[in-house]
């Protein structure tokens, strides 16, 4: 990678930036889930690694959260953008060199930010934990270069019209930059109290609603038609999905603060938006399910489709939960419990991870023109992710319901701790399965790059999956 930093743009092979992003994202995923497994062990076994401030839960938690969001998920997005955006425009990436620098500065900045968090230097706001220097760095050297590269590639396209995926990519990079600058306003304007709380959740929810969810969906809009060979079922549904997210989903932040003394109308507004997310979510799911017509055998046979459709189907429970758990009628019960933790993992480890996984699998094979090293290991990875995640989600959902009942019925806290203990152990088992699966993935993708069978010109990787 380092040798390309100062090479001429023309001398850098096409797709290099995407490949660096791909492997960075996998490494961050291994690191992030490793930390997750470690943190889960601390909650399941209170005597596990004590006596050190650095390894206490309060120091380690944010490192896990931000490593998976800005390491794994966001870098996998960047990877997808670097090869899907040019492919859709029948062109090449506007600047491979900018892409390489983007990836380099991203890894440096993220490592630095996470080290600061680990040392306890934090803004103290959940999800926007990074201190202001790192926030500025992310806006200037991570989000903006990515946005410029994506926009310029779209502008330089050699096709008529813009494919659905690129609408989302183009809008997503714009929105995440704005979210970073505006969402950190408590730092620029020294906001405190309710204003700070509101902006914290404005940031946190919009990173999910305007970045992670739409970009993950955009990946599915590409992989499903590309791998199955079917045209996208409906241009119109794509439109409805895109515009309803972009126009209506920008102010649901208050639904994280339903018990706070925010203005009542703001909470109503947020709550209604939260329920309405079901409209675009179901639009998205139906569009892809209908695109799959006649190709359902690929859900079993093809690894990319297996990942993508699993992710797409998870959008249903995700948005059912998300839509209703934030209403006043339900939120008072589940607020502040493990239910929410389960929901957050359904969004990030369930829905979006499976979609990104497909993009990274497919992208590495397409760019390097090398067939997947081992289909068996890929299936192993899929099942470890799915089973690990399911154990995690089910156990934390049950733990959340127990905690909710404990909260409402004044059950002594210590009794709740005893009652939820088995589920904490189950969560650790689930998280550790995910981590193990990811180690296998890293090995599989490394071996693909090194010794994968070459794909001849004119053929696609998934067509050769079962050829020896």
């Amino acid at each position, binding site marked *: 990678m380092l040798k390309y930093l100062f090479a001429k743009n023309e001398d850098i092979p096409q797709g290099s930036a995407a490949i660096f992003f791909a492997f960075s994202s996998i490494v961050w995923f291994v690191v992030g889930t490793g930390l997750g497994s470690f943190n889960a062990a601390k909650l399941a076994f209170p005597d596990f690694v004590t006596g050190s401030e650095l390894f206490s839960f309060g120091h380690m938690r944010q490192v896990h959260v931000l490593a998976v969001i800005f390491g794994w998920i966001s870098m996998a997005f960047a990877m997808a953008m670097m090869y899907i955006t040019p492919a859709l425009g029948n062109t090449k990436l506007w600047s491979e060199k900018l892409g390489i620098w983007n990836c380099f500065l991203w890894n440096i900045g993220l490592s630095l930010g996470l080290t600061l968090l680990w040392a306890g230097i934090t803004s103290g706001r959940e999800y926007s934990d990074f201190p202001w220097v790192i926030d500025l760095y992310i806006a200037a050297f991570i989000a903006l270069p990515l946005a410029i590269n994506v926009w310029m590639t779209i502008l330089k396209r050699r096709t008529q019209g813009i494919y659905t995926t690129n609408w989302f990519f183009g809008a997503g990079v714009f929105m995440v930059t704005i979210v970073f600058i505006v969402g950190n306003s408590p730092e620029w304007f020294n906001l405190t109290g309710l204003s700070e709380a509101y902006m914290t959740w404005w940031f946190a929810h919009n990173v999910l609603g305007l970045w992670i969810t739409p970009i993950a969906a955009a990946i599915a809009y590409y992989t499903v038609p590309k791998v199955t060979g079917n045209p996208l079922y409906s241009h119109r549904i794509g439109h409805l999905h895109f515009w309803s997210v972009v126009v209506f989903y920008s102010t649901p932040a208050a639904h994280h603060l339903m018990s706070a003394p925010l203005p009542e109308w703001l909470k109503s507004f947020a709550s209604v938006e939260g329920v309405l997310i079901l409209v675009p979510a179901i639009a998205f799911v139906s569009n892809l399910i209908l695109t799959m017509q*006649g190709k359902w055998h690929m859900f079993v046979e093809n690894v990319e489709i297996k990942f993508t459709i699993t992710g797409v189907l998870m959008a249903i429970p995700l948005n059912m939960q998300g839509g209703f758990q934030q209403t006043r009628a339900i939120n008072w019960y589940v607020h502040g419990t493990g239910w929410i933790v389960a929901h957050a993992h359904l969004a990030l480890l369930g829905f979006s991870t499976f979609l990104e996984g497909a993009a990274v699998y497919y992208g590495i094979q397409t760019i390097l023109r090398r067939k997947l090293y081992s289909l068996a290991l890929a299936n192993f990875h899929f099942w470890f992710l799915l089973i690990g995640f399911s154990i995690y989600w089910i156990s934390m959902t049950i733990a959340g319901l127990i905690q909710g009942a404990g909260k409402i019925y004044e059950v002594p806290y210590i009794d709740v701790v005893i009652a939820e203990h088995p589920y904490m152990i189950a969560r650790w088992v689930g998280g550790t399965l995910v981590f193990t699966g990811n180690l296998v993935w890293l090995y599989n993708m490394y071996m693909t790059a090194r010794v994968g069978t070459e794909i001849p010109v004119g053929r696609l990787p998934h067509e050769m999956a079962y050829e020896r």
Partner: protein
Amino acid sequence: MSDNKNANQTPDTGHSWDDGALRELLNEPPGWWKLGMWVSLAWVLVYFILYPSIPLATDFTKGVMGWTAIKEYKADLKEVEELRAPYEAKIKKMSASAILADSELSSYVEKSGKVLFGDRCAACHGSGGAGNPGFPVLADDDWLYGGDINTIEASITDGREGGMPAFGGSLSAQQLDDVTQFVIGLAQGTKHAAGAAVFEEQGCSGCHGEDAKGVTFMGSANLTDGIYRFTPGTAESVKYTIAHGVNDGSDPETRNAVMPSFADKLTETEIKKLAVYVYKLGGGQ
């Protein structure tokens, strides 16, 4: 969703991407989805009329029901408080022992006491008073300072601090072993003559009593019942206690046994409730 229905007959947008690999068809959204969308939008309209929701220049629409979260919360709280008020008023006036004697009040207090105990006591004494290593079990009927209701109330209000001098310096290794064996033997019904002599000479009986059954006003432990203040009740643990004492400032390895005073942390009513709850845990003495 029959197989491959219309997959290639619906017209597309006329555009293609990725070297012709991707096209978008012009299918309409499914009817059920459109219905869902219009129903959702109708629901939004109704919601906005009923609840506070639309921001105006300096104010916002209040909704035709006049509902707010804080009103609902206050109404619910009032309902609970009205239910509890007659009991709370009586508890405030009565002593702990009188509450215990009144069967209706006593069962009311047992329930609210459980919540209080869980929040304020269970961290040390365990859930339901089951005890934790280093902290006394409250769910049995063995009491250091006495188990009647007034004493329990006093223990909670003023706290307790046990005290036993460290004998590690004044006893020889042999004497320490002997007296340990004697103490262990007390609960098992075996006798250890040499240990008994040390017990007498060193003045152990001065606190634990001639019969070694403990003296409640000093909080000294009953050594004959096989219930140990410092678990586990092994010879090793007993020997440690004798050698290092309890709360003996001169021995850095001494046992700690301090129950803090709750006089300024809880109200008198709460202390009364806890006293009744704890008394009932042990079955009453």
